[in-house]
C-alpha cells in the first residue's frame, strides 16, 4: 500500500487523461464524470494520505528505467503541500472549465491534456529524485502546449510557439545541469543530499546557474518570463490553473527543491549564489509590477502580476532563512488561491460580459456583484492588505529578510506593495465607483463559473484569517521548515 | 612472381575504376567503372588465394558469388539508367540532389 498510494494519486489524473483522448466529442456526460470523478478521487486519496502522514506513515514507489534513470515517487511534507493545492484547484477548475466550454469543439482533446497537465504536476510534486522531477517537468511542458494552442488560431499558435521557444531551451539547461551534477555525484535523491565535494566551486556555481535557468523559465524569472504574458491567448481555465498554479508553481517548487534538497541551504550560502538569486527575484518582483502597470488588458495585467508574485516564493527560498522560507512556501499556496480567483473572475467577465480591457470594467460591481467581490478580495490580497492571505506572506518574507541580514528586502516588499496597489486599485475603483457604459451587458447566471471563484476567494480570505491555526498553510509551512530544514 | 603481377593488376584496376566512378558523368560508364573495381578486387583476392601450396577454393567461391551479385547490381543500375533517360532524357545525374 505504501508504494501504491503515490502511484494511485498519479493515476487518478493520468487515467482520466488517457481515456478522455479517445472519447467522442459529444459524450459530454462521460467525459465530465471521468474528469470530475478523477479529481474527487484524487482529493480523497490526498486527504487520506494527509492523515496517514500526520500519523507517521511514509510513501515511496520507484520504477527503474535504466541505470541511474529511476522514476521515484516519494511523499514528503513539501510534496503534500503542493499536491493538496493542485488537487483542490484542479477540482474547482474542472467545474469551471466544464461550464466555460459548454459544448465547444475539441473538448476531449482539451480535457485529456488538462488532466495530463495535472498528472504531470502531481508527478513533479511527488518526485523523489532529480531525474523523475525532470521527466515530469518535461511532461508538463509538453502537455501544456496543446492547451495554450487550444483555440488553434494565429494568436494561440504563436503564443504556444513562444512558450516552447522558452521552455525547451530551459529544459535543455535543466537536463545539462542534472547530468553534469550526477556525473560527479551519482543519481540525486531528495532524501539524501548529494556529496558535492567532488566538484569545484566554479563548476557548482555553473550547475546552480543552469538549474536556475532551467526552472526559472517556468517560474517566469526575469528575463525568462516573456512566454507568460504571451500565453494569455489561452482559454481562461488554462490561464487559471496553469498560469496561476501548475506551471509557474512547478518552476518555483523546482527552485525550492534545488536550493534545499539538491544543494542544501548551507552550500548555497557557501557558494554565494543565494544572494544573486534573491536579487534576481527582487528585480523580477519589481519589473513584473512595473510592466503590469502598463497593461490595459485584464489578463495581461494579471499575467505580469503573476511574474512578480511568483518570485516572492523564489525570494523566500533564496534568502535561505527559516522565516523567509516559511513566507515563500506559504505564498505558494496563498498566491495560488488569490491568483486563480482573479483568473476565474477575468474569465467570467470575458465570457458573460465580453469584458477584456480594464477600461471596460466600469460599473461591473453592480452588474456582477459576486464576481466583483471575489475579484476585489483577490486584488486586495495581492496588495497585501491585512488580514488577507498576501499580507501573511509578505510579513514573513520581511521578517525573513531581516533574519537573513538582508534588510533591503523590506524595500523591495514596500515598493512591490505600492506597485501592486497602483495596478490593482484602479481596477477596483472602476468596478465599484465608476458608472457603467451605456451598452454594457453582463450577468452572473452561471453558477458553475461563479461558485469556484467564490470558493477560492473565501479560501484566500480564510487562510489569512486563520493563519495562526496549525492546519493553515502557514502552520504547515512552519512545520515543513521546522521538520526538514530546521536544526 | 606471377601472382604479384596479377595482384598489382587488380590494384590498378581498382584505382582505374575509382577514377572512372568519380570523374565520368555518363552513367553507363560509371557502371562499367563499378565492374572494373569489383573485378580488380576479385583478381587481388584470387591472387592472394593462390599463394599457398594448394590453391584455396574459398576465394574462388566468394568471387563467383561476387560476380553474380555484381551482375545483379549492374542490371538494376542499367535498368535505372534506361528508365531515367526515357522519362527525362538524362544520361547523367542532375547536379544536386534536392528535389523541390
Amino acid at each position, binding site marked *: 500500500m505504501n508504494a501504491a498510494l503515490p502511484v494511485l494519486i498519479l493515476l487518478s489524473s493520468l487515467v482520466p487523461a488517457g481515456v478522455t483522448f479517445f472519447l467522442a466529442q459529444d459524450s459530454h456526460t462521460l467525459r465530465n464524470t471521468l474528469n470530475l470523478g478523477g479529481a474527487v478521487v484524487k482529493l480523497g486519496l490526498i486527504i487520506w494520505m494527509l492523515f496517514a502522514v500526520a500519523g507517521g506513515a511514509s510513501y515511496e514507489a520507484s520504477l527503474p528505467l535504466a541505470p541511474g534513470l529511476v522514476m521515484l515517487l516519494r511523499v514528503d511534507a513539501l510534496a503534500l503541500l503542493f499536491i493538496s493545492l493542485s488537487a483542490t484547484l484542479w477540482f474547482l477548475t474542472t467545474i469551471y472549465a466544464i461550464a466555460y466550454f459548454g459544448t465547444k469543439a475539441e473538448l476531449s482533446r482539451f480535457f485529456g491534456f488538462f488532466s495530463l497537465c495535472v498528472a504531470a504536476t502531481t508527478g513533479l510534486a511527488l518526485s523523489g529524485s532529480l531525474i523523475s522531477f525532470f521527466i515530469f517537468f518535461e511532461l508538463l511542458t509538453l502537455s501544456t502546449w496543446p492547451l495554450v494552442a487550444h483555440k488553434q488560431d494565429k494568436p494561440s499558435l504563436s503564443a504556444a510557439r513562444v512558450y516552447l521557444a522558452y521552455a525547451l531551451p530551459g529544459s535543455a539547461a535543466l537536463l545539462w545541469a542534472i547530468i553534469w551534477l550526477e556525473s560527479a555525484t551519482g543519481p540525486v535523491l531528495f532524501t539524501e543530499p548529494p556529496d558535492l565535494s567532488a566538484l569545484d566551486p566554479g563548476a557548482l556555481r555553473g550547475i546552480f546557474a543552469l538549474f536556475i535557468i532551467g526552472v526559472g523559465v517556468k517560474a517566469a524569472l526575469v528575463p525568462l518570463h516573456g512566454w507568460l504574458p504571451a500565453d494569455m491567448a489561452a482559454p481562461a481555465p488554462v490561464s487559471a490553473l496553469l498560469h496561476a498554479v501548475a506551471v509557474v508553481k512547478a518552476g518555483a517548487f523546482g527552485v525550492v527543491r534545488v536550493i534545499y534538497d539538491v544543494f542544501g541551504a548551507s552550500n548555497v550560502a557557501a557558494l554565494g549564489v543565494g544572494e544573486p538569486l534573491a536579487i534576481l527575484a527582487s528585480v523580477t518582483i519589481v519589473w513584473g509590477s512595473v510592466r503590469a502597470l502598463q497593461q490595459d488588458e485584464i489578463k495581461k495585467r494579471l499575467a505580469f502580476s503573476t511574474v512578480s508574485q511568483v518570485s516572492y516564493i523564489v525570494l523566500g527560498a533564496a534568502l535561505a532563512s527559516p522565516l523567509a522560507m516559511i513566507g515563500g512556501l506559504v505564498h505558494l499556496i496563498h498566491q495560488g488561491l488569490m491568483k486563480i480567483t482573479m483568473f476565474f473572475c477575468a474569465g467570467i467577465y470575458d465570457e458573460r460580459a465580453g469584458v477584456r480591457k480594464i477600461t471596460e470594467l466600469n460599473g461591473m460591481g453592480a452588474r456582477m456583484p459576486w464576481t466583483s467581490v471575489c475579484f476585489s478580495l483577490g486584488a486586495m490580497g495581492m496588495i497585501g492588505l491585512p488580514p488577507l492571505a498576501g499580507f501573511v506572506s509578505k510579513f514573513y518574507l520581511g521578517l525573513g529578510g531581516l533574519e537573513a541580514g538582508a534588510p533591503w528586502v523590506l524595500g523591495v516588499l514596500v515598493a512591490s506593495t505600492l506597485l501592486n496597489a497602483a495596478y490593482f486599485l484602479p481596477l477596483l475603483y472602476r468596478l465599484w465607483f465608476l458608472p457603467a457604459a451605456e451598452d454594457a451587458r453582463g450577468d452572473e447566471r452561471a453558477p458553475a463559473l461563479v461558485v469556484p471563484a467564490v470558493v477560492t476567494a473565501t479560501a484566500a480570505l480564510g487562510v489569512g484569517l486563520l493563519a495562526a491555526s496549525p492546519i493553515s498553510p502557514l502552520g504547515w509551512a512552519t512545520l515543513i521548515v521546522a521538520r526538514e530544514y530546521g536544526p | *612472381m*606471377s*601472382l*604479384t*603481377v*596479377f*595482384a*598489382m*593488376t587488380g*590494384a*590498378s584496376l*581498382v*584505382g*582505374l575504376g*575509382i*577514377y*572512372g*566512378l*568519380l*570523374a565520368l*558523368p555518363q552513367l*553507363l*560508364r560509371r557502371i*562499367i*567503372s563499378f*565492374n572494373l573495381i569489383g*573485378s580488380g578486387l*576479385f*583478381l*587481388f583476392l*584470387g*591472387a*592472394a*588465394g*593462390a599463394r*599457398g601450396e*594448394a590453391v584455396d*577454393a*574459398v576465394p*574462388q*567461391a*566468394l*568471387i*563467383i*558469388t561476387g560476380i*553474380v*551479385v*555484381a*551482375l*545483379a547490381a*549492374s*542490371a538494376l543500375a542499367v*535498368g535505372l*539508367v*534506361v528508365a531515367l*533517360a*526515357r522519362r527525362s*532524357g*538524362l*544520361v547523367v545525374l542532375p547536379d544536386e540532389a534536392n528535389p523541390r
Partner: protein
Amino acid sequence: MSLALDLALCGLILCVALGAVVGRGVFRSVIFFITYGLLLAIGWARLGAKDVALAEAAIGAGLTGVLLLTAHGRLRRMSVERAPRVGPNPMAATTGIAVALALGWAWFALPAPTAPDLAAALPLTGMGNPVTGVLLHFRAWDTLLESIVLLAALLGVWMLARDVDWHAPLGLRYHARPGGVLASFGRLLPPIGLSFGSYLVWAGADGTGGAFQGGTVLAAVVLVAMMAGVLPPPRVAQGGLRAALVVGPGVFLLSGLLAVALGMGFLTLPPAVAKPATLIIEVALTVSIAVTLAVLVIGPPDDKEPVR
C-alpha cells in the same frame, strides 16, 4: 616464360580497361569492357581458377556486355542529351592512385597465407570440386542469399516499367526477319546451348562448372531464342515464368527448412544424401538462374520506345 606471358596478359587487361574508362564514346567503352572481361577470364584460367574463368566469361563479359550493349542501343535510339565532355579530373586521379597504391602496399604486407582446411571436410559433401563444395555446402547461406539477390534485382527492374506497360510482354519487341541470320541462329543455338549448359551443371559437382555458369549459358540460349522470335517473351503475370523464377531459391530454402524439421540444423545436408540432394538443388537453381538472368537482361515490360 609464363611470367612474361602473365605480364603481357596483365598489360593487355590494363590497356583495355583504360580504354573502357577513358576511351571516346560509350559504345567503344562497352566493347572495351567486353574484351576486358574475356581477357580477364584468360587471366583466371592462368591463376588456375577455371570455375571463376567460366563465370567471368559468361557473366562478367557475356551477360553484362549484352546488358550494356542493349542499354546503349536504347539510349542511342532515344534522343537523350549527350553527356558533357569532361577533362581529366585530378582529384579523382589522386583518389584512384592512392587506393591502388594502398592495395599494392597491402599485398606486400600480407602475412603468410592461411586457408581453412577444405580437404578434410570436402568428402562429407560428396562433391569433387571444392568450389562447388564451398558454394553449396560450406557457404550455402551465401549462395542462397545470392540467388535471391538476383530476384531482388529483377523485381527492381520490373518496377521500372511504366504503369501502362505493366501487362505487356517483357522487354522491347525485337523483329527478327524470318529466315534471317538471327532467326536461323535462334533455331540452331538452343539445342547446342541447352546441352552445353546442362553439361556444365552436371560437371560442376566434380569438375569445372556449376549452377551459375550453366544457368548463364542457358540464359543466353533463352535470350537468343527470344530475340529471334522463336520464344515469345513472357508477361509478368505468367504463372510459369514466376514459378521458374522462384523454384531454385525455393527448393534450396525448403531443403534447408526440411533439415531443421528433421532435427538437423538449417541448410544441413547429411553426407548420406548430400550428393543427390545437391544435384536436385543445383538443377532447380539452374532453372531459376537461367530464367532470371534472361528476363533481367531483356528488361521490364515495355510496349514501345517513346519518341521524345
